């Protein structure tokens, strides 16, 4: 491979956006999870819920901060590395991204401060309202980003004039064909990410403090585990269903991407379901294929004899790289079914008893902690690699979208991002791990609750967590 500005810019974008996306994926779900906890607390008055809220809001604050920091980089990268893309799509995606920024920032600026530091300054109901607004803000923010991305996948409502895409119908641009199901699929993906992360971290707390931990601490972990698993059990099957529906849209609007996902070279009826294969781009065939006859057609068209498009329908220079698309899609699917498996296992244990004590199950739940992150990433890889070689499907090739910058400049920036993100990620993970190790405070007392009142509004974290673990440093002596 020739490491020119194009390839390096692609690597840089893939790296920075993969890093970025795991934080929104987590915080979108966490915000709603916090709203749910606070709602239950207001409804029942059970301090357990408030306690859980106070714990998970810290995790939320750190993740949110890392999401914002990495998001700023994304917003400028569109211009620095993909200026021809910015120029071509600016009239359409400019407003969509501006709407994302202003909705996200208005809600962040207005309500995140209250949510993080306002317990003692505003009433319970206003605080709950703030939490709901932050949760709503994350969903609206995702709405605009997914709309912009979907437009790049299935562009609609525009005309091309003078080498620029110009808006014709905003309704069609925003609600472009692939948007509704992609948005549903993504939001549920975020919710499941949070559900499995909460379940896994709770399972870890239960496994870690089997006997000696105070009962109050364990009770919180049990409740969180139970709530998260109920949620996962209900949503996982719906997600699989929505994913299937979304697949039908891909078949209709992006047939070549679908052919790559299926590893299907010839347009044909009775397509088999390929469980395993090594697609070969040059030979235009699959090696070591293991498949079930006809099932592929049935899944895609809901008819055994349904005709499915093939990669050879288009010339070789319009085909995406088949091998990675084929595998990342199957990876996502495998994680989805593992989630379903854990959900069913959880139902069985609930019925049989032993949900909180079955060590094998708790270990499995713990192992599944990062599963949602994995599924979200692999799903995005499928969507983004699958639409190659286009950036705007059928309109703008990736190779024509790159900035007129030198290879040297992109090499410098790529290296810098690799190093800096490693440091940021290292610090963030270290801090999150410390938080988790401490776990929620016991219900009886929530230390520091009062002193939070006049602390600064900072999104990354709450002030009373010491990074180095040591006792709070003595108050500094004034020089005067």
């Amino acid at each position, binding site marked *: 491979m020739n490491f020119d500005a194009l390839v390096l810019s692609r690597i840089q974008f893939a790296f920075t956006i993969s890093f970025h996306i795991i934080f929104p994926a987590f915080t979108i779900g966490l915000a709603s999870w916090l709203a749910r906890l606070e709602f239950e607390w207001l409804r029942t008055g059970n301090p357990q819920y408030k306690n859980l809220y106070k714990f998970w809001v810290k995790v939320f604050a750190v993740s949110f901060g890392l999401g914002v920091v990495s998001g700023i980089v994304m917003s400028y990268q569109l211009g620095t590395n993909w*200026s021809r893309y910015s120029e071509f799509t*600016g009239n359409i995606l400019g407003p969509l991204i501006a709407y994302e920024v202003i909705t996200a920032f208005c809600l962040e600026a207005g309500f995140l401060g209250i949510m993080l530091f306002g317990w003692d300054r505003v009433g319970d109901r206003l605080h709950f309202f703030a939490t709901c607004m932050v949760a709503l803000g994350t969903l609206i923010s995702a709405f605009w980003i997914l709309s912009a991305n979907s437009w790049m996948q299935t562009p609609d409502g525009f005309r091309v004039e003078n080498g620029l895409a110009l808006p014709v119908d905003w309704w069609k641009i925003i609600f472009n064909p692939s948007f509704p199901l992609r948005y549903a699929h993504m939001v549920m993906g975020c919710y499941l990410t949070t559900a499995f992360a909460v379940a896994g971290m709770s399972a870890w707390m239960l496994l870690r403090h089997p006997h000696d931990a105070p009962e109050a601490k364990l009770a919180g972990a049990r409740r969180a585990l139970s709530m998260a698993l109920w949620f996962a059990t209900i949503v996982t099957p719906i997600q699989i269903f929505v994913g299937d529906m979304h697949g039908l849209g891909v078949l209709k609007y992006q047939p070549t991407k679908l052919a790559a996902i299926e590893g299907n070279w010839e347009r044909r009826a009775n397509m088999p379901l390929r469980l395993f294969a090594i697609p070969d781009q040059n030979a235009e065939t699959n090696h070591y294929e293991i498949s079930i006859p006809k099932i592929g057609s049935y899944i895609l068209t809901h008819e055994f004899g349904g005709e499915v498009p093939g990669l050879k329908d288009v010339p070789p220079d319009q085909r995406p790289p088949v091998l990675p698309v084929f595998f990342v899609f199957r990876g996502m699917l495998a994680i989805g079914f593992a989630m379903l498996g854990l959900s069913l296992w959880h139902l069985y244990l609930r019925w049989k008893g032993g949900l909180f004590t079955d060590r094998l199950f708790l270990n499995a739940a713990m192992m599944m902690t990062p599963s949602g992150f994995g599924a979200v990433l692999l799903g995005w890889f499928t969507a983004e690699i699958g639409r190659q070689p286009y950036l705007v499907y059928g309109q703008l090739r990736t190779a024509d979208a790159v900035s007129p910058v030198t290879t040297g400049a992109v090499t*410098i920036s790529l290296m810098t991002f690799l190093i800096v993100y490693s440091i940021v990620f290292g610090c963030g993970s270290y801090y999150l791990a410390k938080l988790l190790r401490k776990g929620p405070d016991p219900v009886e007392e929530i230390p520091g609750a009062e002193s939070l009142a006049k602390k*600064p509004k*900072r999104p990354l974290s709450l002030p009373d967590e010491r990074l180095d673990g040591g006792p709070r440093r003595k108050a500094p002596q004034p020089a005067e």
Partner: protein
Amino acid sequence: MFGFGTEYVGWAFWLPLLWAVILGVAITMYVVVDGFDLGIGIMFTRAENDNWRDRMMFSVAPIWDGNETWLILGGAGLFCVFSVAYAILMPALYIPMLIMLIALVFRGIAFEFRFKADTSKRIWDYAFHYGSLLATFAQGIVLGAFVQGFEVGGRQFAGGTWDWLTPFSLATGVGLVCGYGLLGATWCVMKTTGALEIWARRKSEQFLVATIVMMAIVSAWVPFLGRQIEARWFSWPSILALVPVPLLTAFVAYMIYRSVNDGHHTAPFLLSIVMFLLGFLGLVISLFPYIVPPSITIWQAANTVDSQMFALIGYAFALPITFAYTAYAYYVFRGKVAKEIAGGGYG
């Protein structure tokens, strides 16, 4: 108006103008509010002890996050309304933008971790200082590169990766460091007490002198850049309208010096803001109506009327809310920082 953009009529004429004002306000807001918290970072490691640094940092901790919101509003606004300019400027400023973003990332993390660190506190001190310094320097370079102008072919940047790097842009970089230092020092005068305040008054004087020197150097340099800017400044009769700007600046500088020495608390900071606004006015007079000097005007770079109108609806709601939030945050955290921040800070 002003003899520019006369080939555009109706909305196509007024919308780019309106958006230029909106972006101008966003950029000015950013420069003023993030200017003083970056300035705090610039003088940070010169502070005598940890208590001073704690108090300086705490004076901006509650609001710096909101301050940076304006940077995002400006960047998104540029892409949203003048996407052609965005597509030219960003590749042209690739390296300074990279430096600024990375520096802001480090600086942002420093806010989060410094108050939590014991053994690693020094590391976060340096991350905050050098992050602030580099981010400011990079912004100053962007400013200088902007005044110098960009090589454009069609709708794309046609220059080289290092075109921005000239003695002039380095001078504007240093100039902005001095200017933000002045904002930071006068902010510190307003927000602190005792020996720290006295030290901040001395720093204010030093940064004031440095800022004036750099402003003079940069202003004298501009005519030698070979642009049409000097024609605007030194031609009759426009010179009559423009001469008040440098004269006013000199007067404000004198007022800052007086108020610092007379023991005023808020006046030095507010006057420093006025000085920045005058500098900004001078810049606007020099460059208007070019958004990519010296070739592309705001009308040439503007998106279609439809696109601008659609975005305007959103900004019409967002800007007042952001203003309100900013005002509220400053109101909540008004007054001087307590000498001991351990108990909560604002005493």
